[in-house]
């Protein structure tokens, strides 16, 4: 092991922006003796510290691994441009924050892939570490490179660069992977042996053990394993119950996003919104008990000293004991200065009751709702039904209970969307503003946030096409003008910057060349709106002879083999197709807690379902 030259490092840190990103040394950081453990894992979030440090998945793995005496985990993030330039100039390889050890000296490098626009940063992170970017170029002198996270449910675009993907919840999987690594290491055999060993673990996908056959028109004919002893379909892993909450969350020394205590109160969602990737891939719904939540908060406050808490879930209102939880959280924290946020509330008066419970804990906070669509027709298409009457009633309650700032989320570019659906967004928000003004005059603020719909793999809309950026831009221009006239704040993403997500999210293995070429052309930090340059990507498509339109403009055939079909979330393709067809007929489906729609989850996982008295699952 070679340590980084501290003097040289200090010299460059003196000149870079926010050097606190690169030094570690935070409260609750774990620094172990390098030689006291058998296996060392570097956990990477391929964007800057400020964005990645609070990532819940990595924080859970960091603590779980470091709890084991024979293992250590250290963190690494992408350096910002100024730091990267200085490191390359001085030949300093990428290093971990804890012991300042070069990443190439670790046994395993675990990278989180939360979204697609982070892919070029993965290549850059490997390159800065002196690790060859392609899996085939790496040997036993390099760390085993594994990836996990929400984007891994379609691993194919990154198949050339990652040795093995962990599909689904990583809490158990990580130890099985490390165990396989340790067994292999003691045998002193070639890397191929390790990859085969990993492929035997349920939930691990080793892309080099699979091949893809294509039709002449570019569609996939089949994806098949190259040896008999690996599975045809890789079913994701789930934790039957939520893992214990983090005991010692790292408290960053500099300000980062989501700088607060995070307590996951529920994983998964039963609502069945047809655009929602997280809602499908995180099934089944698993809840944490109120007592465990309160204990986690108590531990969290004592271990971090944070003044802010967020209760995390995809749909807070759907926790079966949510009112009890908010009441108890208030009682627990009323005498200390802790502001509590409860995201993702349903649009109904009950949500206002929940927020009322926590109101004294968070003076001045706003209220957020997500109608997503503004006409009954579009609401049926996306399966997020909502009566306008209830929307306005809820808004009235929100304002009359004293909230003055209301944020509303909408989506545009949805399948089958017409201009009248977009106009309705403007109409609705104007009415909402009127209700607020009637009660409080000009003191109220309405803030509308517009997201561009992108069809995601494993969702009912995986067969749909994305709307072209020009036509999305027209809709945005219309909304911008209307909102400006009414003095409603509007935020949105540049349609251009959603292109990348659209190409990659339903991409196949061939896009690996495009990603590599785009990175060579200079693409990185693509997730940053002001950094993303589509020209790097168009040039890369051009240079590799791959057509970008193939991935975006095409309505998929109903019987098409998708690049991600061999990765199973437990939800069957038949169920998704049924949903897609219902969407086209404008039919909705009720929340599956009220009755099972046989999505496939229980078929896959009912044998590990815990006793309902201990751990509640949303499935009937």
């Amino acid at each position, binding site marked *: 092991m070679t340590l980084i030259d501290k003097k040289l490092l200090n*010299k460059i840190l*003196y000149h870079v922006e926010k050097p*606190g990103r690169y*030094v570690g040394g935070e409260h609750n950081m774990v620094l172990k003796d390098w030689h006291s453990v058998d296996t060392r894992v570097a956990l990477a979030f391929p964007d800057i510290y400020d964005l990645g440090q609070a990532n819940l998945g990595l924080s859970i793995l960091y603590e779980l691994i470091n709890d084991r005496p024979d293992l250590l985990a250290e963190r690494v993030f992408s350096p910002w441009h100024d730091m990267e330039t200085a490191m390359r100039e001085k030949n300093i390889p990428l290093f971990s924050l804890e012991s300042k050890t070069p990443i190439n000296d670790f046994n395993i490098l675990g990278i989180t892939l939360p979204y697609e626009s982070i892919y070029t940063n993965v290549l850059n992170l490997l390159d800065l570490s002196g690790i060859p970017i392609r899996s085939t170029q790496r040997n036993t002198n390099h760390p085993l490179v594994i990836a996990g996270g929400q984007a891994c449910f379609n691993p194919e675009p990154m198949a050339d660069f990652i040795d093995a993907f962990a599909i689904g919840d990583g809490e158990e999987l990580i130890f099985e992977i490390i165990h396989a690594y340790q067994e292999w290491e003691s045998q002193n055999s070639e890397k191929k042996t390790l990859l085969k060993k990993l492929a035997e673990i349920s939930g691990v996908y080793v892309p080099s053990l699979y091949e893809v056959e294509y039709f002449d028109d570019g569609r996939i004919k089949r994806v098949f394993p190259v040896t008999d002893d690996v599975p045809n379909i890789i079913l994701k892993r789930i934790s039957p119950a939520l893992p214990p909450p983090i005991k010692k969350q790292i408290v960053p*020394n500099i*300000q980062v996003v989501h700088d607060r205590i995070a307590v996951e109160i529920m994983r998964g969602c039963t609502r069945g919104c047809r655009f929602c990737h997280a809602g499908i891939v995180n099934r089944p719904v698993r809840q944490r008990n109120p007592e465990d939540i309160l204990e986690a908060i108590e531990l969290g406050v*004592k*271990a971090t*000293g944070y003044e802010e808490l967020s209760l995390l879930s995809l749909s807070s209102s759907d926790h079966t004991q949510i009112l009890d939880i908010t009441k108890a959280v208030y009682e627990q924290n009323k005498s200390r200065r802790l502001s509590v946020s409860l995201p993702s509330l349903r649009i109904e008066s009950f949500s206002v009751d929940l927020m009322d419970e926590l109101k004294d804990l968070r003076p001045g906070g706003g209220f957020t709702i997500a109608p997503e669509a503004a006409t009954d027709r579009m609401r049926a298409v996306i399966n997020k039904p909502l009566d306008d009457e209830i929307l306005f009633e809820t808004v009235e309650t929100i304002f009359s209970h004293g909230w003055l700032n209301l944020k509303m989320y909408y989506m545009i570019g949805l399948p089958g969307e017409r201009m009248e659906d977009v106009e309705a967004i403007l109409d609705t928000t104007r009415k909402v503003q009127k209700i607020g003004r009637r009660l409080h005059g000009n003191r109220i603020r309405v803030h509308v946030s517009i997201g561009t719909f992108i069809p995601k793999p494993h969702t009912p809309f995986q067969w749909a096409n994305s709307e072209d950026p020009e036509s999305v831009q027209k809709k945005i221009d219309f909304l911008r003008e209307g909102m400006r006239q009414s003095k409603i704040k509007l935020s949105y993403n540049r349609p251009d910057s959603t292109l990348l997500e659209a190409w990659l999210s339903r991409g196949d293995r061939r896009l690996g060349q495009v990603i590599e070429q785009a990175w060579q052309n200079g693409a990185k930090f693509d997730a940053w709106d002001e950094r993303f340059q589509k020209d790097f990507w168009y040039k890369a498509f051009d240079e590799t002879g791959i057509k970008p339109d193939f991935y975006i403009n095409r309505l998929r055939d109903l019987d098409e083999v998708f690049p991600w079909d061999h990765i199973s979330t437990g939800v069957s393709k038949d169920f998704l197709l049924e949903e897609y067809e219902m969407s086209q007929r404008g039919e909705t489906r009720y929340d599956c807690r009220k009755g099972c729609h046989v999505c496939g989850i229980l078929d896959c996982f009912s044998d590990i379902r815990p006793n309902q008295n201990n751990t509640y699952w949303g499935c009937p």
Partner: protein
Amino acid sequence: MNPITPFRVRIKFAKLENLRFIGHLDLQRLFERALNRTGLPLRYTQGFSPKGRINIASALPLGFVSSAEVLDFWLNAPVDLQEIQASLQAALPKDLQILDIQEIPNKAPSLQASVLSSEYAIVFPVIYAQDDINTELRNILAQEIIPVERRGKIVDIKPMITTHAFYEEGVSTILHLQMDSSATSNGRPDELLKLLGIDPADVIIERTNLIFEE
């Protein structure tokens, strides 16, 4: 609103290694959270978004180390000083070391209002010859004014420099400087180094003392 008589505590602390790259506002937040972790009854400011009542004497520029930082905080009840020191030290990152602790009368003037100047020790690596730096520094100090640019404005830093002296310590050369650190006149040793043609990143700049109005 807050009827209890506050208990004002002053600590002197060292800021070392990794923490030298943590700025003033971040340090303020870090101390607030550390005090929260101790469970000590930290007093809060009144108003819309209350903050822990913490007062750092003088912002230390990013990259400097220090063995002489001073900070006041207020508690809602008296607590044994040794107990405070032990629990706060346990809640701090290891690169912040408490050196001294004392109770301060509530009516004592604020730290920022009474800080006058700082003493710095600048450690040059062997590659720098003491004589050269010495001569160069003398030349600069002999000027009528010493202009440096601060945010687009030209400032004369000559009146901010009180004393300077060179020492040899082992193989290193150490420059001791005393410069103003008040709200109206704040000298920065790194500015002087740049005038000497030295990259401040190549040397270690340590604040060794803070001098307050008696």
